[in-house]
């Protein structure tokens, strides 16, 4: 029926009668910034992959543009008790080959997730808490967890459901070739060329209604200037991550439209507190090590925070594509506190704090950062250094590619580390636990706490929050934890990145906080 209609429309178009759509209008190309490393939805837990997978596969629970959980392949879910969750599955959903979707596929998926050979970053993190799966009927499934796991729905939003029929013997290669890449999503995989492109075709029988595009080609355009050039020359209709340098020109040009949205990624600074004496790259002005670690002094940390003019960075370095940050997530996310506003720029106050802490003449430090990981990362590092040199801190800047940087940062080889953190779960508790809880790998606490900041009061609150299933109560606990951490300047939040998408005129993209670029969010029309 649809096909006939489309044929008729195409005929109209040929006759020169204006029609709503024509064949060409239904093809679209999109320029992506990072490579898709696999089409196996359980091979590599990596944002660009996760974003791409959402076209072909679907999770039980989806996230909307603000990362709120919404029904996906499950229509509803609830905790029966502290350890048991029941999920009702959507009926009349079919895989791309026409086979029906049932609870068996979900059970099969959970079995496969931890068993993907050579996976460099597994999705088992999300399924591990589930110790037992019971298929009640084809559209009801029950999960048991060993301990209270409040983030289960959020975790399952990251797990794509695959078909048992096609997945039984399939390996990662079979997903890449398209043989096993049979999901329930709005698009079918047509072609995957590593490091080059992914081509998708519409799934006309999609349960959620038909998409406006017949064919979507994602091109990998890693170089920012090349990406913009591709948009300007009409090779692609949309690009993600418009470089800030080109924002002014593109937004002035009537032929293009820009949309943006504050993201879940905070750019922050970790201050090395592993040692009691001078940490690496922090010295007196004479270059000699300091007897005490100044970064362990909350007054020094506060001085380092309030001497940064965040608004100036947002205006001048980020072309207004960043929002000054006072905590780890923008205010509309779960667990954030309205009391935590970005630190006010106060260089005089900073000088006083430094003097109080026993460094009236300042000291010397090196700002270490990446130069290919976050938006304008090397420029932010330089701007911060400018601000510090004005309060008497001798500041050097050293930036390097992520490949060198992260290994060294994890080993604690830097004193002042500029970093970024995207909160995929969309709630501040998990970020506090990863970044600021006392480093304890056995408990899974502070796993990314490169500064080794430690505060028992904060740890207790985080642990309590993690085992509180009541949302309201838990949110209160997380807010309190965040206030304690930020008032102690446990880390220095700089800003939240604002993601920007650029389209040709005549396209409209619904921007997302998770920085995903989805063809489903791209519609024709103004």
């Amino acid at each position, binding site marked *: 029926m649809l096909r006939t209609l489309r044929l008729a429309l195409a005929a109209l178009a040929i006759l020169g009668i204006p029609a709503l759509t024509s064949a060409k209008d239904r093809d679209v190309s999109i320029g992506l910034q990072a*490579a898709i*490393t*696999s089409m*196996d939805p359980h*091979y*590599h*837990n*990596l944002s660009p992959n996760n974003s791409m997978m959402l076209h072909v596969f679907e999770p039980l629970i989806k996230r909307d543009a603000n990362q709120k959980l919404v029904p996906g392949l499950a229509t509803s879910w609830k905790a029966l008790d502290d350890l048991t969750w029941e999920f009702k599955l959507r009926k009349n959903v079919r895989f791309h080959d026409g086979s029906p979707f049932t609870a068996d596929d979900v059970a099969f998926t959970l079995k496969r997730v931890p068993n993907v*050979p*050579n*996976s*460099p*970053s*597994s999705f*088992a*993190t999300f399924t*591990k808490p589930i110790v037992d799966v019971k298929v009640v009927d084809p559209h009801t499934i029950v999960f048991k967890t060993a301990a209270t796991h409040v983030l289960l729905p959020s975790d399952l939003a990251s797990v794509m459901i695959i078909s048992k029929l096609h997945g039984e013997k399939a390996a*990662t*290669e079979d997903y*890449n070739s398209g043989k096993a890449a049979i999901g329930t999503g709005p698009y079918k995989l047509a072609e995957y*060329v*590593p*490091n*080059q492109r992914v081509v998708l075709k519409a799934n006309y029988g999609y349960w959620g209604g038909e998409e406006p595009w017949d064919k979507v080609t994602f*091109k*990998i*355009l*890693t*170089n920012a*200037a*090349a990406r913009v*050039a*591709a948009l*300007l*020359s*009409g*090779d692609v209709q949309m690009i993600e991550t418009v470089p800030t340098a080109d924002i002014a020109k593109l937004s002035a040009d009537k032929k293009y439209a820009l949309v943006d949205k504050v993201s879940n990624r905070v750019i922050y600074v970790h201050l090395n507190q592993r040692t009691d004496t001078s940490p690496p790259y922090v010295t007196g002005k004479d270059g000699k090590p300091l007897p005490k670690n100044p970064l362990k002094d909350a007054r020094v940390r506060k001085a380092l925070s309030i001497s940064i003019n965040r608004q100036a960075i947002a205006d001048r370095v980020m072309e207004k594509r960043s929002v000054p940050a006072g905590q780890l997530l923008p205010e509309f996310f779960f667990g954030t506190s309205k009391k935590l506003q970005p630190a006010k720029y106060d260089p005089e106050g900073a000088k006083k704090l430094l003097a109080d802490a026993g460094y009236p003449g300042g000291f010397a430090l090196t700002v270490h950062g990446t130069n*290919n990981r976050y938006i304008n990362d090397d420029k932010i590092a330089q701007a911060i250094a400018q601000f510090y040199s004005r309060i008497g801190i001798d500041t050097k800047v050293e930036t390097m*590619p*992520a*490949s*060198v*940087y*992260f*290994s*060294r940062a*994890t080993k604690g080889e830097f004193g002042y580390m500029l970093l970024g*953190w995207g909160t*995929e*779960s969309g709630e501040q508790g*998990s970020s506090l636990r*990863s970044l600021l809880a006392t480093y304890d*790998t*056995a408990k*899974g606490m502070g*796993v*990314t706490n490169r500064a080794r900041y430690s505060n028992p009061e904060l740890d207790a609150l985080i642990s309590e929050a993690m085992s509180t299933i009541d949302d309201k109560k838990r949110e209160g606990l997380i807010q309190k934890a965040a206030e304690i951490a930020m008032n102690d300047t446990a880390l220095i939040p700089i800003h939240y990145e604002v993601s920007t998408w650029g389209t040709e005129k005549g396209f409209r993209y619904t921007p997302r906080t998770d920085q995903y670029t989805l063809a489903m969010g791209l519609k024709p029309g103004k």
Partner: protein
Amino acid sequence: MLAYAIRRLGQSLFVLVLMSFLVFIGVFAIGDPIELLVNPQADEVERIRATAALGLDKTFLEQYWVFLKGAASGDLGKSFVYNVPALSLILQKLPATIELAFVAMVMAIFLGIPLGLVAGLKPDSLVGRGIMAGSILGFSLPTFWVGLVLIMVFSVNLGWLPSNGRGETTLVAGIPVSFLTLDGLAHIAMPAVNLALFKLSLLIRLTRAGTREAVLQDYVKFARAKGLTQGRVIGVHVLKNILIPIVTVIGLELGSVIAFAIVTESIFAWPGTGKLLIDSINQLDRPVIVAYLLVIVTLFIVINFVVDVLYSMLDPRVRLGGAAAAH
């Protein structure tokens, strides 16, 4: 000749083994791939699992030994990132790069040598000086800058050429090539020019220098005196005598063009090995880096061999097998 070839082969194997070892050390020194591969939100259990899955929990020497054993049976390992055999990933991308390199080299040779000859024969004329001045442009501006300016002019402003990617391909002897279709030519034009510029300048200057020397030599004067035509004098006597350094440089440059078209490929999103290499280096995808360099070394060895054979053909005074027999 055969003995020479066999000896070179033995040496080459040694080079390959040494090379792979150096790359192992190098990548090891840069950083830990797990830092880049594992999702930052993952816990310690997951990190340990991933480290083991990729074989990175073994000691450095054990890892190298595993690699050597695999390599002996033709298996260079699987990409950490893509989970496909590193070699097949590279071979998939190699035709695009070789094609780009050849088109660029052909441009450089067929423009560079004639222009260099003209500049060398008439060094003081306006044309000669113009050619020399122009050649300076070719190597004084960074490739990435020239590349973007080309895109700005020809794709964005004029809209004549596509800004990125490779065009439609046709199969020739089972290998996909794009320079036989109009679409393919439109795509390859700018990256090839971008890549050729530096080589072109170098060839112009080398040819000019060689020509200027050659025309003053007695045998050329003699040939002229004999009344040979200008064309024959240049084509046979001059050209033949300036070819040795030019062949060396072409050999070197062809290798480097194939191997390291990194910048050009990333600016034009050309789906070749250069782009693969830089992405692999950025992600510390060691199997791909190692396999890539082994492929490249093999390629270099072949090119060098061909160049050495060419020497002996161009100049009988150069004997193959190095100078072993000379003492």
